[in-house]
């Protein structure tokens, strides 16, 4: 019982302190990640249109990196 409590406390505190691991990419090192070319859907209107072109002709749906809207196409 006490061991369980100790483990839970350990896990909780480790969790809150990020397992004692610091974020390994600092905010001031995000230059490349913030570049718009790193976003495959940087132009949302175009990305969601191409996603729509594929989805209406295939059975596969969901888990796209583009957020969906509704479509009532036959």
């Amino acid at each position, binding site marked *: 019982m*006490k*061991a369980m*409590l*100790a*483990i839970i*406390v*350990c896990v909780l*505190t*480790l969790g809150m*302190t990020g*397992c*004692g691991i*610091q974020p390994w990419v*600092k*905010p*001031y*090192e*995000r*230059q490349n990640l*913030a*570049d718009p070319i790193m976003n495959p859907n940087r132009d949302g209107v175009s990305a969601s249109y191409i996603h729509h072109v594929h989805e209406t002709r295939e059975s596969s749906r969901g888990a796209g990196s583009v957020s969906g809207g509704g479509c009532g196409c036959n």
Partner: protein
Amino acid sequence: MNIIRIATFGILLFTGLHASALEVGQAAPDIALSSIDGKNIRLKELRGQVVLVNFWASWCGPCRQEMPLLEDMYKKYSKLGFTILGVNVEQDNSKAKAYLRDVTVTFPILLDPQNIASKLYNVEAMPTTAIVDRNGKIRYVHLGYKAGYEETYKKQIKELVKE
């Protein structure tokens, strides 16, 4: 019993491994960097003035929003013994130089391509603003920028220049 002791020690050890966050009241770590104009600027040499240290990057949206507002503050309060150090954290500062050609600021811009100052100030958000009093102590820390923050900065600067 023993397990609890080990657990407590483990927790204390892990929390201790954290780099200490920037604390209000601590002495501001010294910054010695060259400015965009080529001059060498040192924070210690600005003792006696209220200094707002702002860590920014050209790729950071909120940083760009904040820039003209910092320029306004600089123009307004610099006669009262206030200055701003805009520390650019980009490893490649060509974009920062291009940005500053379009948006002119008159306060010193320091270049920290090796992130020496960023590490000393434990920059955990972009932008990070630390306001240092005339005795070189950190009095206020702001992480990030949202519209309205500049009003808080002005209040804090006014308070510190009176000292």
